[in-house]
């Protein structure tokens, strides 16, 4: 009788220990997952601060010029690449992946270029390469003169569908 009670106690203790050990293991994993989650959050905040600091240091607003690119609809033009020149100097050459093009078609806007420019008159030229209506190779350019003052300058390259002419339209607008 005593032996049976002893064995039963041992079995119960072992079961309880096993269940506690499992619980502890689960808690530990939960803690690591929570800690990682917290770390991810902090990394995002740190990345934000670094991004802002980098921009402040390298592109102060007095000289900053930003060029965005957006696509509206995109039925008549499939974007492959863009070459951007400011004052006849190539500042960006960009090749697009399908995923990036899709993101643009769905309403995303790409920050194509950020740089510094002295105050005064400047010219921006953009060359768009891709497939035009009926899948033909298509290369078009557009240019725009603008004045850079002491505030940050933002420009946007837009690709729109001109339904009347069934052709894509390329423009530069000041934001």
């Amino acid at each position, binding site marked *: 009788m005593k032996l049976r009670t002893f064995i039963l106690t041992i079995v119960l203790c072992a079961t309880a220990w096993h269940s506690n050990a499992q619980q502890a293991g689960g808690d530990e994993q939960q803690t*690591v997952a929570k800690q990682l989650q917290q770390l991810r959050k*902090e*990394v995002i905040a*740190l990345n934000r*601060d670094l991004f*802002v600091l980098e921009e402040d240091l390298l592109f102060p607003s007095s000289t900053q010029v930003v060029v965005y690119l957006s696509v509206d609809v995109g039925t008549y033009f499939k974007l492959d690449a863009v070459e951007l020149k400011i004052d006849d100097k190539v500042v960006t050459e960009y090749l697009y992946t399908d*995923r990036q093009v899709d993101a643009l078609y769905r309403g*995303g806007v790409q920050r194509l270029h950020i740089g510094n420019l002295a105050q005064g008159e400047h010219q921006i030229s953009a060359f768009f390469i891709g497939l035009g209506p009926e899948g033909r190779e298509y290369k078009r350019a557009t240019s725009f003169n603008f004045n850079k003052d002491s505030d940050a300058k933002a420009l946007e390259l837009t690709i729109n569908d001109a339904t009347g002419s069934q052709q894509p339209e390329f423009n530069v607008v000041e934001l």
Partner: protein
Amino acid sequence: MLKPYLNRLNASLSVCAWLLYSSPIVAAQKCETGIADKAYQEVLYYYFQHDFYQALTQFEILQQACPDSLSSISQPGVDPYLLKGGISLAYGLDDQAADIFSRLLTTAAPLETQTQSWFLLGKSLFEKQQYQASANILNKITIDNADEYLHTLDKDQWLYMQSQLFNWQITQSITAARDNSYWLDELSEDSVYRQYVIYNQGLHQLQSNQYAEGVQTLEQVGLADKSFLDSFLGGWWSPLTVVDQTETDALRDRANLTIGYAHLKNQQALEALDAFNRVRLGSLDSDSALLGYGWAAAQREEYQIALSAWQRLQQQPRSNEYVMESYLASAYAFEQAFAPTQALENLQRGLQRFASEKQMLRANQQEINDQYFIQLANTADWSEQIPAHLSSIMLSSEFRNQMSWLEESLGLQSRFDRWQQQLNTFSLMLDEREKEAQSRQQTLKQSDLLSKLQQYQGLREQLHTRLINAEDEPRILSDEQELEWQSRLERAKQRHKEISEAWLRLNKKPLKPRYVARLKRLEGIMLWNASESYSTRRWQAQKMLNEVDELIAQTAQQQNQLIAQLNKTPEYPAQRQRIAELQQTLELQQQQTHRIQTQQLASLNALFKEQIQQQIDQLENYELQAQLAIVRLNDKAFRKAEADRQGAKQ
């Protein structure tokens, strides 16, 4: 004349101003709707590419610059807060996502936003296995609202979770059973969740001892044929179709495996053989199916077929319970087929394999350390590089989960290292800029650049006076040729005067008056010409003067800016402070990552060793079974020999 100098001065001042104070200037943040919209569209650009990390960073930048901007976004589509919640969820910030959704649900958000928030919040809880809370949340969505406000894929997922939660609630006796046909009617025709719902229902029925119903349900998945196009074209036309097909095929294999074992358990060997036969060779369930196939054949006393299945299993380099059990199973089949010698041989081979597996596992237990896991996590597609005998351990979901955490923390560590270098570069850049600014300041002082504008202004005033005087004396505006002619005329007049005087001194007759008359005529012509072109020249001169005025004004403005900048307190200390703060945060996070990594590695080691030990224990169990079988076979042979001998004696 003044213009080139002014242009040069203007350029010098611009360069000086930029170089002196191109140090970080915290721009006054513009939070107009247009700018906020653009920033939001940048978020979308990353979001649509599934780059959730960048998307969240852009969200944070936007919200830091303009805290209330998300409410005023004029872009059509999903609510920006909802989007942020969704992205947070996708990036693994579950708590942040839950906070956002809860906040959205306490505000008077439109029904569409509410429905989507309930869905995402419920999904988050479902993934965290908080089923009761998840069921409560997901139940708040009505089928009409799901139809109206959720995308098809999301609606299907909602229905799937609902069906699972219903099954879970039935097992917890929280709710009454509901016919699965409800979910199947609502799910879209081509949804992959349809198969899961059916499979889970079948499994649930089998677990509730409803053998016939369970098999019938599972056969809806297991017997589902590929479409003609799928079989014929193999899905080559669309990678997406291939992915979907892979999932469907894997689920079909699992359903057939489950059907096979259900039949086997219920002594329906022929049906079991049929079901196991439908599992593809080379699939995740092929080993298990081969073992089951053998047992089904053995149940029908078709030992040759059973042995061929098990022999095939034995040839696998993988080390899992199905392969190991095949040695014991083969011995059983040989024994049943009255081939005890082969049974013994097979058991001996099994013992050798168990021993060699154990040896390798023990060696791994000793050798594998933190460095091995770090190296593995840093290897792309590490799961393809692991030794065959460790596959069942390392491909377990728990192990993979922990490895993915380790991969993430290692990725974070290398990112922190990069950032540390970047901050050091920024610090050096500030040093260089400060030095450069000081040297420019010095040069400015030495070259007295700022007083030059006053000199040029003086010169401009002189020009202006001359222009006024030109009204009385048009020849002031003469061009170079005319000025030369004028000087020649003056020289001729002087010479005439000198000659006339010399002539008189020599008591000669005075010069003829025609010389004077010629000189006067020439002077008259020149005066006439000057008067004729006066108005044009005056207009040109005035225009040039106006341009000079404009340049002087611009230069003065530049100079004022430069002076203002010179008088401004330098911002370098503030920037250095920002860098130092970031460096400090970075250091803290590096320490935190290191702590987490240590924990992860300890946990991985413990898991690995525990699982290896389990596998060794299992192998020892097989060894014991094999040894017992050998003893039993030997005993049987001995008894048979004894009986034969007794028979021979009699």
